[in-house]
């Protein structure tokens, strides 16, 4: 605990830890000091001079070291002759800060006047208008008249596309450098910079393609003016017209808290439409940030034209037919659930499966779930608390691509002093921030992790860690490989679990895979064989689209019942299709891979012709003669909490509890923390750890060694792919295009006569796919990285042949 310092701000006594800045101390005491360049998440720079205040410090007698007292016995104060910036001055004992004296307010007023000399009068059309710190502070602290001539305004370039997603208006920029500093220090991708000097200072991007960062959207949140705006919200609506719906991002297992902004629109027939996704503060999960995938791909798919719908009568008959088929099949039925389903849906599904006596499998290509339920994080965990003395291992995962916010959080942990060990077969973006990088050949993942303790420094860091968090992923691994890897990781954790901030985290590809695992759903080792001849009920999964072998298996199935929100290969193949409501249209809970159960709330009404997943399952169950709760998510959660030990004690009220977080974010404080939303609707609850002692399976997997004319193909995950929920996000089309292709080492490519960007045919698992060749020196020779969800079916490492595509 840091030493506490007592000071007075505007006469109010304030006690804050040593090192706190005056601006933060005032904020904690509820006193507003206007700021533009200062942001509580970043180091102060004192560039905008807006936070000018009078600061007095007690005079100290040099001889005794004691404060000099005046006649009345009070310490004598020494004020600086000029105003000081509150954001760069740390508090000191006995300090007196005056923020609203005439001298201070004049200083603040004049700074605003200077900032406004060249600021255009764009407010009526500016996307920031209405939630703009400059607007708000000019109204509160600024002068009503300017002494500068309107005609002398500096004109600069407007509507500059910094990248595909972010627009810059150079006239509106006040050169606070918040965006530059965010990219440098928080995102760790310094792609923005100042160019020129003085009045000509401009923000420029120094990457090709422009603004090459997956955190770019956050700069628009912290921009204190309308200089940076997002492409998707451009002229979409005025901020005051928007309604807010709290939700959880469903693009990856991190579970970032988000807010959907909705409004009614003529364009959508007078109905509600989602206009943008904004981060919602949860200091334990995403702080106040979110990645561009969540921001730009978080909702377009829910409004896609390929949404499945059925008229009420048809839906009813489809449900009856589905129920009849399942009731007839009984234990000959197979249930296959995807990780997109909410906990409530999965609970109902589990009850249905139990009533039928049918096996229920989790559809995933990543195993090790039984390990994460027993070795996962426990209550009180927060990656933001990791620091000196703690160790984090990232094994076989490219967090930057798989879960960008974890990348950001681990980078921050490493900078706070935590030992970050990255073990991967190829270079990832996290390497730059790690203490140790461990390289291995694809296929040696498990052996490498087992051998970590044997390495001198790495082993020390693991053994002596106060807290040990291990992330493992499926970079270059299939179901079997990941299970073995998870078990190996769990061994490192022996004796450490049960304490907060110790545990194993699986970097899944879906938002609620952890929830499914906690409820007992497990992946099937050989799925294709389990589907043949059965009555298959598939929910929120597209096996047919992922793998032609599974498509074949489904064709031989007795009946296929598919329940999904979008039309997929599987729904096309299915005899009965049940249209489900998107998660933006309903209530529910997701369990993030950190085992945090978080509530999401409906943003828009349920699309006509669809129904919520748990209600569809309950309806089928009812027709099969099983009574399940299908009326509301809350009632299902009550049953879930009563019936499942992992979820016991949870209810919607406890999940909706929120406490005040630091930094203070909110509508009145948006000049301070940015436009990220305040969390009023729940921080989530971490599940209790699986009680049963778990015997780690000491399985090893055999590394595949390809033959001479073959390459080793390994599946990897790209942030922007052609997955079902991402493809409809037209804003990200250019990004998807950039990543679409298999990655090779230039040496390997040269041997095969392939060039960067060239076209080639990949033949894998008896399927030939035309694709693009991308070169990367960090990939080992003899290996080809096959991105998942890019139409090349590869569920686990395999030998492949690549040939140059014949020119048409």
């Amino acid at each position: 605990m840091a030493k506490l310092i007592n000071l007075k701000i505007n006469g109010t006594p304030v006690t804050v830890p040593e090192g706190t800045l005056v601006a933060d101390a005032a904020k904690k005491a509820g006193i507003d000091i206007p700021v533009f360049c200062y942001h509580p998440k970043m180091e102060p720079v004192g560039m905008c001079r807006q936070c000018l205040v009078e600061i007095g410090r007690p005079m100290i007698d040099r001889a005794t070291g004691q404060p000099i007292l005046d006649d009345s016995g009070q310490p004598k104060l020494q004020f600086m002759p000029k105003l000081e910036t509150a954001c760069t001055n740390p508090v000191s004992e006995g300090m007196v800060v005056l923020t609203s004296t005439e001298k201070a307010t004049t200083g603040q007023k004049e700074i605003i006047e200077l900032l406004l000399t060249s600021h255009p009068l764009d407010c009526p059309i500016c996307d920031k208008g209405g939630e703009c710190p400059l607007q708000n502070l000019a109204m509160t602290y600024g002068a009503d008249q300017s002494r500068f001539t309107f005609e002398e305004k500096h004109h600069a370039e407007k509507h500059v596309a910094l990248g595909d997603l972010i627009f810059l208006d150079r006239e509106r920029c006040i050169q606070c450098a918040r965006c530059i500093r965010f990219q440098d220090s928080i995102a760790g991708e310094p792609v923005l910079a100042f160019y020129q000097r003085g009045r000509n200072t401009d923000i420029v991007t120094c990457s090709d393609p422009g603004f090459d960062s997956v955190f770019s959207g956050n700069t628009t949140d912290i921009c204190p003016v309308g200089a940076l705006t997002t492409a998707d919200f451009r002229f979409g609506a005025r901020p005051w017209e928007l309604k807010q719906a709290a939700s959880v991002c469903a693009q990856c297992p991190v579970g970032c808290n988000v807010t959907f902004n909705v409004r009614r629109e003529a364009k959508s027939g007078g109905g509600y439409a989602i206009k943008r996704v904004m981060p919602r503060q949860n200091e334990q999960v995403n702080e106040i940030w979110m990645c561009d995938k969540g921001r730009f791909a978080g909702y377009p798919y829910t409004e896609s034209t390929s949404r499945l719908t059925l008229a009420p009568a048809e839906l009813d008959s489809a449900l009856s037919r589905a129920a009849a088929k399942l009731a007839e099949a009984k234990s000959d039925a197979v249930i296959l659930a995807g990780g997109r389903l909410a906990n409530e849906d999965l609970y109902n599904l589990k009850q249905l499966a139990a009533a039928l006596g049918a096996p229920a499998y989790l559809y995933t290509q990543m195993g090790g779930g039984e390990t994460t339920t027993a070795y996962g994080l426990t209550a009180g965990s927060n990656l933001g608390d990791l620091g000196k003395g703690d160790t984090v291992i990232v094994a076989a995962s490219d967090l930057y691509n798989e879960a960008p916010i974890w990348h950001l959080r681990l980078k921050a942990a490493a900078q706070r002093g935590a030992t970050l060990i990255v073990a991967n077969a190829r270079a990832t973006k996290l390497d730059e921030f790690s203490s140790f990088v461990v390289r291995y050949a694809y296929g040696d993942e498990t052996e490498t992790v087992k051998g970590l303790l044997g390495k001198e420094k790495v082993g020390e860091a693991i053994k002596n860690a106060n807290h040990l968090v291990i992330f493992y992923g499926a970079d270059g691994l299939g179901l079997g490989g990941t299970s073995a890897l998870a078990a190996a990781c769990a061994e490192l954790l022996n004796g450490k679990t049960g304490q907060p901030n110790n545990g194993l985290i699986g970097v899944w590809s879906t938002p609620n895979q952890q929830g499914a695992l906690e409820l007992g759903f497990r992946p099937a080792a050989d799925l294709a064989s389990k589907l043949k001849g059965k009555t298959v009920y598939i929910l929120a999964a597209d096996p047919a689209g992922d793998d032609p072998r599974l498509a074949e298996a489904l064709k031989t199935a007795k009946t296929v019942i598919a329940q999904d929100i979008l039309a997929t290969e599987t729904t096309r193949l299915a005899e009965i299709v049940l249209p489900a409501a998107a998660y933006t249209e309903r209530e529910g809970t997701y369990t993030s891979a950190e085992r945090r159960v978080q509530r999401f709330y409906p943003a828009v009404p349920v699309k006509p012709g669809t129904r919520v997943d748990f209600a569809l399952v309950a309806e089928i169950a009812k027709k099969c003669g099983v009574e399940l709760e299908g009326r509301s998510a809350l009632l299902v959660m009550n049953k879930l909490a009563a019936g499942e030990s992992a979820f016991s004690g949870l209810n919607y009220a406890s999940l909706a509890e929120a406490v005040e977080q630091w930094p203070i974010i909110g509508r009145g404080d948006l000049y301070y923390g940015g436009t990220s939303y305040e969390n009023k609707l729940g921080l989530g609850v971490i599940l209790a750890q699986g009680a049963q002692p778990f015997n780690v399976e000491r399985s090893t997997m055999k590394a595949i060694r390809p033959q001479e004319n073959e390459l080793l193909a390994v599946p990897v995950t790209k942030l922007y792919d052609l997955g079902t929920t991402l493809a409809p996000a037209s804003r990200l089309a250019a990004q998807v295009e950039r990543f679409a292709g298999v990655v090779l080492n230039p040496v390997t490519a040269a041997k095969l006569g392939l060039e960067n960007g060239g076209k080639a045919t990949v033949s894998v698992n008896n399927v030939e796919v035309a694709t693009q060749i991308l070169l990367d020196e960090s990939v080992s020779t003899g290996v080809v990285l096959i991105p998942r969800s890019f139409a090349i079916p590869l569920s686990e490492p395999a030998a492949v042949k690549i040939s140059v595509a014949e020119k048409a």
Partner: protein
Amino acid sequence: MLKDSMLVQLGKGMFTTLRALFFEKKVTIQYPEQTRPVARRYRGRHVLNRYENGLEKCIGCSLCAAACPADAIFVESAENTDERRFSPGERYASTYEINMLRCIYCGFCEDACPTEAITLGEIYELSFTDRREAIFTKERLLLPVPTGGEPTPQVTEPGKFTRSVPAMQNPQD
């Protein structure tokens, strides 16, 4: 006695009537054939104004909708391009609707408008046979294109309209 007789009283009354009939200015007009001019600051139905070149003054800022105490105005905006230009700035109103059944003719929208695009005009003949007719769309609110101007959307030369909001003078009465 004679003074109070009914005939005298009647005669007095008739005199007033006859005086008005023959010597006073007539106030009755033959509406709707004839209409009375309205006051200079009369607040009738809104119109959306155009510039002389035919471009719309409205920039789709929605401030009128924000100012409206009756929530009668609905605006949706979109972006201008040089190939398809509606207004001089970056933004224009792609949807503009006023529900005249809700409007209370307070004129706050006029006050809020940064470009003098919306003004309350002299039109007061508002009767509807259908509630839907009471919703005035942008097409019904826009004034006709002035002579010499072109209808919107216009094709304009690049680099001519570079400001986000066209430069405005102080309001003239």
